[in-house]
């Protein structure tokens, strides 16, 4: 694709995200995306043959970046507590930085066709699996102590995903602080008693 072609495709992606976010997938017409990206409908169809393809690409792009962010965080250390802390921090920061995409992805997942949806669910399952392996290893090695391992992982994922839902101005200015705080809360959830929470109970 030519330079201007790439630019147009990027403009279409930005326009589609803004429109899905504001009007919902159903409420967004191809014409509306074309209008926002200052392209003709024909030019838009040249880049993206359908509205569904745009949504599919948007969600996949988001999930790929998320998996990369938490994967990198997990590889930084072999210490399981630090690993969980880092992964939760990366997860929270990612969701704060990419709130709009996250919301659209969650709200509109059911609009994808069966194959595209399966692919996204596979990526979500890889995301959960990464957390689950850390927690399972931690419990096996008695670094963590939690009876309901699967529920604990789900709870940790949910609190660090829904962070995009309710948070205030102070957090907007300092996402790193919030990410660190949630990382420590996640360690509490899995019953980690060592540093960085030195006060053993």
């Amino acid at each position, binding site marked *: 694709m030519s330079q201007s072609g790439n630019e147009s495709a990027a403009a279409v992606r930005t326009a589609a995200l803004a429109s899905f976010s504001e*009007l*919902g*997938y*159903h*409420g*967004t017409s191809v014409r509306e995306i074309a209008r926002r990206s200052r392209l003709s409908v024909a030019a838009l169809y040249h880049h993206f043959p359908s509205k569904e393809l745009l949504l599919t690409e948007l969600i996949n792009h988001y999930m790929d970046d998320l998996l990369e962010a938490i994967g990198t965080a997990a590889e930084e250390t072999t210490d399981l507590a630090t690993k969980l802390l880092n992964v939760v921090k990366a997860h929270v920061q990612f969701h704060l930085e990419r709130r709009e995409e996250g*919301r659209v992805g*969650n*709200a*509109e997942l059911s609009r994808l066709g069966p194959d595209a949806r399966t692919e996204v669910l596979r990526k979500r399952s890889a995301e959960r699996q990464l957390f689950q392996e850390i927690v399972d290893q931690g419990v096996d090695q008695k670094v963590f102590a*939690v*009876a*309901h391992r699967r*529920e*604990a992982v*789900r*709870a*940790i994922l*949910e*609190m660090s*995903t*829904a*962070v995009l*839902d*309710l*948070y205030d101005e102070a957090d907007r200015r300092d996402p790193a602080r*919030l990410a660190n*705080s*949630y990382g*420590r*809360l996640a360690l*509490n*959830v*899995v*019953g980690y008693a060592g540093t960085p*929470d030195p*006060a053993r*109970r």
Partner: protein
Amino acid sequence: MQKQPPVESPPVSSIDVIRNAALSAFNELGYHGTSTREISKRAGIGVATLYHHFSSKQVILVDLVTTFFSGLLEGVDAAVEAAPDDPRAQLEACVREHIRFSIAHQSDGFVAVRDFRSLNDATMKKVLEQRVSEQRLFEQIIRRGVRSGVFDVDRPTDAARAIIQMCTAVMSWYQPDGNRTAEELAEIYVELSCRLVRAT
């Protein structure tokens, strides 16, 4: 299919019929994807009748979302009132009620959480206040627990929010025919929440 048993069923008002029709349409198509015509079709009434009860689609969403969050806040408030004067017992009661209420009103709650950004500014502000009130309630309990030494967290605000977030998300995945009852799930979340604040 079995015939309805000849017992008296409570009268269903057209308002309820419209609410349920709107709920199912919002659930399936999203707020933006739902037209007033679609709601009236599902309700089996004319568009004119719908407009007689609700002047717009927005009014129905407002009704649905505020009813859900008011009910949740009232339920959690009452649960704290009824609990012993002890931070751990109160936190447990809050979490238990939050999960119970969310599952009992799962479809409303799902739409309320997902589509609340489609509310007009004034209503969104009101709903945010309701949600923040619930968070403050959790936060005050956690603060009292930290002061009396039964909880151990640095930032009660974050802990309160994290607990509410994990409990609220239950509505998006819980399946009534799955392997856990609402009560079992509530007890697991009570345990995880107590761990989160390092309760002793």
